[in-house]
């Protein structure tokens, strides 16, 4: 039912798949996610939708192989079926009324940031993009971002591509150069989003972040994805995944995200053995 129509490797750890999912494709908006199970033994994993084509009835997912769930997903090839796929879940990223926005993407988070940049561009909003990767080998979606951005900053940790430095350096430089953004939208590792929020708070620029906590059902039942936002308990699956970054308790989210680190290490080893790959 949910056939993988295309599978492309974007870099050594990041893969793009196009899946037949007409109902989801019809509804999906940038910022929303799906829950999937690769096989009938797999965990339910949330993945943000990278692109959708309602006419063709397909959605695109871009994922990084990080644990057993994504490794099982990656064992499927073109022509295989996902066991389960549900969505689109969560609230879409709000784009109404934005005139000038800086999109900050980090690593595989760029796969989620890009559709938002594209939509804003289509709506006539001025888009500046700052994207960051560890090194040149891991860069994804560079051409795509360039096409929809008036200004584009490529950052790598080791300087092997674009400028050497962190996304926060580039963002701060853009703000200091006199760019007045209605909003910054930051999507990437928690630590990156935390530091982006540190910068934007200083300059009083509203910042939206996309949170990806541990999740099971993804439909508002289990409460596993809870976060503290502005002192209140919020659930990423139904209240988010987008939140006001200046109100998110990132330290708590980072701590909760590490809850199963030990278990995941074992599960990853198991999956590696199963799929005969290097861990």
């Amino acid at each position, binding site marked *: 039912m949910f056939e993988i129509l295309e599978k492309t490797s974007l870099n050594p750890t990041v893969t793009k798949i196009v899946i037949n999912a007409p*109902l*989801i494709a019809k*509804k999906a908006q940038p910022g929303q996610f799906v829950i999937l*199970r690769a096989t009938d*033994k*797999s*965990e*339910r994993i949330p993945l943000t939708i990278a692109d959708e084509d309602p006419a063709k009835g397909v959605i695109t997912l871009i994922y990084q192989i990080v644990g*057993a*769930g994504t490794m099982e997903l990656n064992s499927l090839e073109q022509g295989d079926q996902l*066991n*389960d*796929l*549900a*969505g*689109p*879940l969560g609230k879409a990223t709000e784009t109404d009324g934005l005139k000038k926005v800086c999109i900050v993407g980090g690593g595989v988070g760029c796969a989620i940031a890009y559709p938002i940049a594209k939509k804003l561009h289509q709506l006539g909003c001025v888009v500046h993009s700052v994207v960051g990767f560890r090194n040149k080998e891991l860069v994804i979606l560079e051409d795509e971002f360039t096409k929809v951005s008036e200004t584009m900053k490529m950052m790598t940790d080791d300087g092997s591509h674009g400028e050497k430095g962190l996304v926060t350096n580039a963002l701060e430089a853009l703000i200091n150069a006199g760019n007045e953004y209605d909003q910054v939208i930051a999507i990437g590792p928690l630590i990156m989003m935390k530091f982006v929020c540190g910068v934007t708070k200083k300059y009083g620029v509203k910042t939206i972040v996309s949170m990806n906590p541990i999740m*099971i*059902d993804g*439909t*508002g*039942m*289990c*409460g*596993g994805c*809870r976060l*503290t936002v502005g002192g209140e*308990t919020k*659930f990423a699956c*139904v209240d988010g995944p987008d939140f006001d970054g200046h109100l998110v*308790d990132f330290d*708590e989210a980072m*701590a*909760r995200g*590490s*809850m*199963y680190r030990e*278990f*995941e290490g074992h*599960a990853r080893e*198991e*999956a590696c053995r199963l799929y005969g790959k290097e861990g």
Partner: protein
Amino acid sequence: MADMSLQKTPMPTQEPQIRNHNFNEVALGYTYEMAVGEAKRCLGCKNKPCVSQCPVAIDIPAFIERVAQEDMEGAYQVLNRSTSLPAVCGRVCPQESQCEGKCVRGIKGESVGIGRLERFVADWHREHAADSVKKPVTNGHKVAVIGAGPSGLTCAGDLAKLGYEVTVFEALHLAGGVLSYGIPEFRLPKSIVNHEINGLKELGVTIQCNTVIGKTLTVDELFDMGFEAMFIGSGAGLPRFMNIPGESLKGVYSANEYLTRINLMKAYQEGSSTPIMKAKRVAVVGGGNVAMDAARCAKRMGAEEVYIVYRRSMNELPARHEEVEHAQEEGIIFKTLCNSVEVLGNEQGFVCGMKCVEMTLGEPDESGRRRPVVKENSEFVLEVDAMIMSIGTSPNPLIRNTTPGLETNRHGCIVVRDDSGLTSREKVYAGGDAVTGAATVILAMGAGKSAAKAIDEALCK
């Protein structure tokens, strides 16, 4: 002449100290002889006080009479007239406050074991009768059911029997609702749930999993697709937390999450890829059936000490009597008149304790139960490495946010006009926890049943 022995035929069970290490079913079920013997205790009262307390109005004396006559298939047919899920109800209904609570035999001695007999008959039918479910002739009307839990499955089954073309939309990858994700294997084996669901499929019910109504499709889109009426049985929703310090520490679970990991995602099975904490000392906060399930699961997952922390006394525990008894036998420690005020964490951010206060009972509150009051200077620390919150849920917002004109109350529960389950939207009915807030399987089934009747009346007028 009825057997006048004062005691119910006891239910054979796994030994407590063995069963608290496995997930196999606790109650083993009556033997044929036990069932026939127990059935003979029924007086066959003409006014049937037991039936008046059954949310789905099973003709209890009629089915028990057939058991006594050893006509097990006949007994099953009586059950089948009123309930689509007898093997489930026989196991999880709170009989002591329903049918058995009104049993005349209970006035002097113990009531007839109605639930145990219901379970026996359903199990006997499953194991012995060649299922010859005949798909009814279709009447051409299409009905959508939202949620494949107890209320939705009941509504779907009743409508299918009347010839409706029913599609059940389920958000998760598996049908069953709380029967699949919530109630553990040792209380309700999943093979039984699957059997009941397959029975519905044979009746012609289509179950479409992985479809989140309110997201994948909306109620109005279902009407556009040709469904003429709808039943919303979307269940209880998001877990509540206490809003005390430390609730975000690693090792604090909602009961929904803990049970979902274990039941739906099979974390109890060897080699499961579902992560779960193997805690040694676990506190479950709450006193309902869900709390008992979570506590008993924790014990089976290898915890040495498991506490139920409940702010009222043993007398006010909302859980079924049998669940409390089973939990006690299995070594669950009841810390009643005790409330949690803070969760304590270690340097790595994992739970290492729970600060509690002792309570006393004051004057009755609006619920009629005596209000728990904090005892002064009674603070103490319970050493635990996991904490499971089982203090209720608030309704899921997905359907109410995407269905214009659907009235909900201040808690977010769907408002229904009367017992038919009709909502503020024409041809849209609702029932179960989505309407009442967290309640029981059988009440949800009763609501599904009434709605099926009302839908039939509305569409076939």
